């Protein structure tokens, strides 16, 4: 059974695939197509025939999408920049959260009575572990909740969406920063100077190493998970 709405949706998806058309562009083309189909049906064509002739007259979806790309170039570029910004932020966010959580783990370790250089290792090791976990889970969740990147496009298209996202990120980062400071103050207060120094030495040593390791880990995870189609083109 031929369902016009279903076919029109499929046709819209084909146009959307290249991420060059805005939703309003598609609405406009659909309105045109439906006008054409009505006219062709009046001329005696069946709905299916009218749909086929109508889409043919509108032109090949790939060529059409490319044509829209030329007009929407700035929009496309903005989206790309926004996406790059999001990735950068996700990286900073993941490192920072991992850094804060690892400090909390370190505090708990010292509260349990562990001391010395070995205790200090807890910080970098847990940092790397949490970092991997956040990137991995974050990626899996986004892929599951937003496989085609539609929600992402919606946020990227609206100013309000971007504002909300940005302020949310800002508040989160502030909260993380506060937690981090609190942990450091607590550790400095509860530990003797000598003990604090011993614990902090490997932490500092490894944290420099982590700056090199983390981007490499990020790359490996992303290659392993393979980005979605929209990430490649966006």
């Amino acid at each position, binding site marked *: 059974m031929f369902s016009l709405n279903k076919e029109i949706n499929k046709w819209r998806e084909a146009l959307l695939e290249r991420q060059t058309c805005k939703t*309003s562009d598609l*609405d406009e083309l659909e309105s045109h197509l*439906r006008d054409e189909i009505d006219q062709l049906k009046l001329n005696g064509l069946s709905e299916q025939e009218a749909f086929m002739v109508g889409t043919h007259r509108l*032109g090949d979806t790939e060529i*059409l999408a490319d*044509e829209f790309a*030329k*007009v929407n170039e700035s929009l496309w570029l903005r989206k790309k920049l926004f996406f790059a910004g999001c990735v950068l932020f996700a990286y900073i966010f993941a490192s920072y959260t991992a850094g804060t959580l690892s400090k909390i783990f370190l505090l708990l370790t010292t509260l349990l009575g562990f001391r010395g250089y070995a205790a200090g290792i807890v910080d970098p090791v847990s940092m790397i572990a949490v970092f991997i976990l956040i990137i991995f889970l974050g990626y899996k969740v986004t892929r599951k909740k937003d496989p085609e990147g539609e929600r992402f496009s919606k946020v990227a298209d609206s100013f309000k969406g971007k504002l909300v996202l940005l302020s949310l990120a800002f508040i989160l980062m502030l909260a993380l920063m506060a937690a981090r400071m609190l942990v450091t103050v607590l550790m400095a207060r509860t530990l003797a100077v000598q003990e604090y120094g011993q614990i902090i030495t490997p932490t500092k040593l490894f944290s420099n190493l982590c700056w090199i390791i983390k981007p490499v880990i990020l790359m490996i995870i992303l290659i392993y998970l393979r980005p979605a189609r929209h990430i490649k083109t966006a």
Partner: protein
Amino acid sequence: MTIPKDLVAASAMPMVLSILSEGPNYGYAIIKRVHEISGGRLKWTDGMLYPVLHRLENQGLIKSRWDVSDQGRRRKYYQIKKQGAEKLKSQKAQWEIVYSALNQLWENKPCLV
């Protein structure tokens, strides 16, 4: 006889601006109008009109708004702006130069006197 692509593309802008100077209109009707005035000889791929319209809008020559048709269908109507009317005027002058130049060449019969 079909008009080659280049010529269709070159004439698209003055064509659209001229049709819109008759009054606000939407894409489907603009296509029909082009079809009608050219007796079907000027063939546009329907979808290609929209990038042209959007480009004209980006250039500030026309403006658009969404409205609802009699059948309850959402439609985007385009309207020419003052800058568009001015652009059309200069385009018209350019096309007239080309037309009259060609015309002189084609209508110049050998002089027998």
